């Protein structure tokens, strides 16, 4: 209304933010001149609680750190503890873990693919995306018993073997999702309005990527082939055949393209994993986990989540409980350092697409 600056809080109760967080902006007309992220609405003190729990009891906690993609957390913690306790896990367990991680990545990307359209008001793909994601959640339910929280990956392997005929059902679901995808593409990729809004939106300067530690699809959209799966392979990823996907636009549209191609890659990888799945044990016997003690040590393990590099910095001190577990969520950098700088100069209408494009997940920022 006037040329004065208006102070506006986007969130926490706002349909456009991606979770329980808040962005304080100063507006001049429609343009943002200053932005600040406020987090802490979901702080449950996981890191403190884990110091009070024995190792095995930490697993139900960590899967809640990132709600939609919980397996990455379990896998990271399990791998870190195995490294500290010097446990070798069977080959089949590694492949099952990789399968679970890829399925989890795929369901997150499908939800995201609808979500980027939803952030601009196109609600049809949102509904489809969340509906189609449920096919994968059904697979998870069959495998682990839970839709969202699985607590399936444990130190020493996985909790139980794949059920009879699971592989075929995975392949069937992949076919089904692949059949559905062209419809999404027509609505999202070929949409003139969508292209007009997203092309060239919020370009990230290339030198920020290394300096700020931007990871994941956002970095890949800026031309950096940063993918933990390739750079420092974990589980069975070194035996899989794939290339890192990069785009060179640095804007939201490139991030969209990267993720769209990631969906295809995930489907391809899942097919490959199923075809290469070895036979054998799925769990090494651990000592009694209730009295399981790990010698003093520290390590940093990381993996590729859908949003970027997920890292666990684990300390043990020879007792039955972790000394400290520091969780590095990719959204911490994306949501605070990057977002505050990126939003300056943008239109208020573009806040929601940018938030979704950076895929900011509040619970992993504050744990």
């Amino acid at each position, binding site marked *: 209304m006037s040329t004065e600056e208006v102070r506006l809080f986007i969130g*926490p*109760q706002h349909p456009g933010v991606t979770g*329980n967080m808040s962005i304080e902006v100063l507006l001049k007309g429609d343009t943002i001149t200053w932005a600040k992220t406020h987090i*802490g609405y979901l*702080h449950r003190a996981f890191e403190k609680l884990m110091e009070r729990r024995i190792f095995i009891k930490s697993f*139900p906690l960590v899967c809640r750190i990132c709600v939609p993609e919980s397996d990455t957390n379990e896998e990271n913690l399990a791998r870190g503890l195995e490294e500290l306790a010097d446990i070798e896990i069977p080959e089949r367990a590694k492949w099952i873990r990789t399968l679970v991680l890829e399925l989890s990545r795929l369901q997150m990307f499908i939800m995201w693919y609808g979500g980027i359209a939803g952030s601009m008001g196109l609600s049809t793909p949102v*509904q489809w995306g969340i*509906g189609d994601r449920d096919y994968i959640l059904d697979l998870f339910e069959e495998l682990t018993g839970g839709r969202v929280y699985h607590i399936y990956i444990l130190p020493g392997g996985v909790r139980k073997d794949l059920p009879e005929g699971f592989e075929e059902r995975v392949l069937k679901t992949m076919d089904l999702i692949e059949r559905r995808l062209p419809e999404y593409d027509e609505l999202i990729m070929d949409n003139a309005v969508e292209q007009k809004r997203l092309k060239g939106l919020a370009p990230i300067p290339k030198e920020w990527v290394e300096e700020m530690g931007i990871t994941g699809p956002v970095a890949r959209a800026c031309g950096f082939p940063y993918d933990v799966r390739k750079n420092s392979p974990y589980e069975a990823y070194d035996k899989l055949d794939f290339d890192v996907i990069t785009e060179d636009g640095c804007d939201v549209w490139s991030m969209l393209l990267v993720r769209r191609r990631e969906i295809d890659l995930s489907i391809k990888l899942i097919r490959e994993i199923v075809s290469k799945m070895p036979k054998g044990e799925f769990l090494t016997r651990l000592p009694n986990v209730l009295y399981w003690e790990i010698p003093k040590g520290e390590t940093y393990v990381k993996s590729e989540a859908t949003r970027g590099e997920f890292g666990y910095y684990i300390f043990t001190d020879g007792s039955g409980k972790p000394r400290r577990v520091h969780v590095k969520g990719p959204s911490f950098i994306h949501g605070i350092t990057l977002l505050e700088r990126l939003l300056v100069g943008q239109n208020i209408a573009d806040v929601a697409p940018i938030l979704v494009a950076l895929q900011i997940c509040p619970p992993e920022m504050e744990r």
Partner: protein
Amino acid sequence: MGKDKFLNEKPEKLTYSGVFKKIDNWARARSLWVVAYGTGCGAIELRPTFTSRFDAERFGMRMVGTPRQADVIVVSGYLTVKTLKRVIRVYEQMQSPKYVVALGACPINGGMYYDSYNAINRLDLYLPVDIWVTGCMPRPEAILAGFKRLQELIDDGKADGWKKYIEALDWYRGNQRKIIKNWRMPNYNW
């Protein structure tokens, strides 16, 4: 903007009676508008509940973006102190009659966060809860069943958490102020 007549004043007790009471309850039960505020992790299962597969809209429920127009607030899981403050504010901005649905084990007695310094243990010390849906996290079917039960309660005129909140306001306020140290909220709007 003038002086606000509802500011800093105890709300009058609202009673509904008369011939329309039955129709009102019937309509209220079939048109539950949920405020779009994902307070915790249960919000991820609210999405399937409200979209294609489980489609809560066939029961007349929908998400609205502002608390002023909402009837139901879904407390989806644990509440941290920081969020509790916002939830109370959102709840008080909603217009009567209004209902609270709590998802998960955490609002009942703290759940797995019983020893966390930042998550509250019992929600019904601070807000009147009409429906509890257990499970961590509750499946969409469970959430729908919870809403269905809420509809039955409204139909019978038994979902009266909001009346209780107005009556026992001092008790609730006392509890709220005990844990929210810096009370920078206006006491307003019912």
